[in-house]
């Protein structure tokens, strides 16, 4: 006969409530593991899906994600002739936030070369890829932009033609893919007011510099203000020929004066060490505190449940129950609480994780680790109750 089951059967509502409470706490513990995994996944999502072997950026910068990097787009041609390079393609990445249909639309813009496809969307879950040089985009489903939506950015309208799933920037912002030219235009082309303003400023500057040649200064000012340098990229992505050592090619490019080249592995390390490391430490601390809180709460519940049973425990001792029966009663109730709460945590998590603002990626390993932790916590938490139960004198059963 299992005493724990029979005791819990008496007040199922209260026990269920305790399980739900502890379960929600465990949901948080599990969520923080998932949040950390989400950080890592998002930080590496664009890198892993780019198809690139090397990332060439402005010298001594950690671009294009961890830090700003700017270099001329035509560097691609210089890279293309490096031995071992199969394809070189300019790449643009930046974040924008625009008001749109009464909400704030924040997205990470990725501009890529349509011909090579390097850095572009690899898995389109709905619709199609970009098929023309201008005015089309592929958006992540998290942006809530259905296919056919027209998005006004800069001076033009762009139509959503395809959707990706789970493509985020390291900041958790969903990604929208544009052609390289469109991404450059959205970033650099000014509207009419900005052009007029810049013309005025440039005219004033040239008039001061060339006070005797007003016509020339006017022409120079117009040229400066009306022709922004569109042909800038944040990185050049390189795909290598099969079997080529990426580190050796990166070293070779690194010897040039103006560029730094990272292998995809180095680029990933830059992201993890930069943006994710702090988040990792933060979530680890949260997990430690939450685990401690769960331990204290389970211990408190089990201790209270034990206190309520001191009379039956004394009776059991009086009729000769061995200590293992008493320990078993307390420990089994503690484990039942922990394991039911664990199942609650798994269920609540599976129902809610896709509704969290940022990606929560709980893996099987996290679930197994939590299970081991829960068993450990329950054993630890029941220690106080067991100690109290074993100290009960059989004679206590005789008192009223």
């Amino acid at each position: 006969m299992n005493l724990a089951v029979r005791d819990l059967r008496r007040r199922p509502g209260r026990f269920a409530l305790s399980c739900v409470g502890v379960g929600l706490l465990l949901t948080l513990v599990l969520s923080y593991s998932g949040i950390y995994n989400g950080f890592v996944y998002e930080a590496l999502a664009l890198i892993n899906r780019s198809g690139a072997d090397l990332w060439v950026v402005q010298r001594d910068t950690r671009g294009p994600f961890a830090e700003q990097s700017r270099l001329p787009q035509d560097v691609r041609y210089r890279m293309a002739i490096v031995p071992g390079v199969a394809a070189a393609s300019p790449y643009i990445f930046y974040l924008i936030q625009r008001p749109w249909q009464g909400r704030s639309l924040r997205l990470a813009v990725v501009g890529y070369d349509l011909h090579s496809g390097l850095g572009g969307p690899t898995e389109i879950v709905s619709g199609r890829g970009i098929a023309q040089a201008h005015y089309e985009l592929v958006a992540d489903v998290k942006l809530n932009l259905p296919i056919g939506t027209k998005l006004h950015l800069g001076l033009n309208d762009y139509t959503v033609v395809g959707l990706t799933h789970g493509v985020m920037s390291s900041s958790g912002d969903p990604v929208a893919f544009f052609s390289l030219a469109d991404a450059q235009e959205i970033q650099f082309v000014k509207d009419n007011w900005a052009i007029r303003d810049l013309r005025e400023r440039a005219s004033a500057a040239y008039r001061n510099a060339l006070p005797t040649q007003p016509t020339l200064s006017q022409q120079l000012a117009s040229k400066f203000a009306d022709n922004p340098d569109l042909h800038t990229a944040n990185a050049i992505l390189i795909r290598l020929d099969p079997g080529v050592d990426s580190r050796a090619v990166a070293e070779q490019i690194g010897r040039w004066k103006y560029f730094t080249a990272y292998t995809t592995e180095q680029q990933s390390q830059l992201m993890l060490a930069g943006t994710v490391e702090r988040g990792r430490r933060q979530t680890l601390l949260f997990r430690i505190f939450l685990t401690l809180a769960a331990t204290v709460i389970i211990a408190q519940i089990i201790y209270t449940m034990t206190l309520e049973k001191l009379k039956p425990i004394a009776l059991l001792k009086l009729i000769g129950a061995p200590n293992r029966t008493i320990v078993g009663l307390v420990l089994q109730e503690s484990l039942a609480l922990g394991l039911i709460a664990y199942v609650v945590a798994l269920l609540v998590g599976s129902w809610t994780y896709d509704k969290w603002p940022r990606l929560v990626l709980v893996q099987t390993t996290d679930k197994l680790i939590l299970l081991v932790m829960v068993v450990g916590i329950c054993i630890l938490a029941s220690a106080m109750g067991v100690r109290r139960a074993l100290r009960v004198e059989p004679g206590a059963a005789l008192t009223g």
Partner: protein
Amino acid sequence: MEVVRIENLTKVYGSGKTAVTAVREANLVARSGELVAILGPSGSGKTTLLTSIAGIVEPTSGRVTIGGVTTYDNGWKVRDLSRFRREHLGFIFQSHNLIDFLTARENVLMALQIGGVVGSAAVRIAQELLDYLGVGERQGHLPEQLSGGEQQRVAIARALANSPQVILADEPTAALDTERGESVMALFRGIAREKSSAVICVTHDSRMIEGFDHIYQVKDGLVSDGP
């Protein structure tokens, strides 16, 4: 056959100026099939005497022998008292004496399980005992759903579960009305005869002493033979 022998048992609570002698040089004998009463007013030391016999309270001096085994001898005590109680003693108290989260049947089954009897044999014994005590139809009820008399009968069934040599009853009729009290005492007499157990019953109710084979009087810790 002699199953309980108490020799010069003394129990002193506290020490020095605050020392209180609850039982003083007590001697008691109970034989199998015998119904023994320990009679005395409240605070006279009778419960201390009973709990000393059971090993719940450790005597200060003297000797306790149960079923031929010395459980206490002037400071020495048997190693595994829990096991000894499980195998030789049955307990019945005035109230709050059933495990409240177990049904009547489960209370009896629990005692059997502790005694090493499990499975269908345990179920059969529990059923027989509850039927014998007239509460077979109430076996699925929790203690809170039973009357005081029914609870006491279930407690008796539990005490009898492992066929103990000695049944120790502490004020078993105190929470019952006269009619039910007499009914319980009649049961004890029947059990003592039929099960060949020694029943030692502590009571302060002199109305219940009829039918006892042996009566010990306790007053201010002193135990005397006879009413």
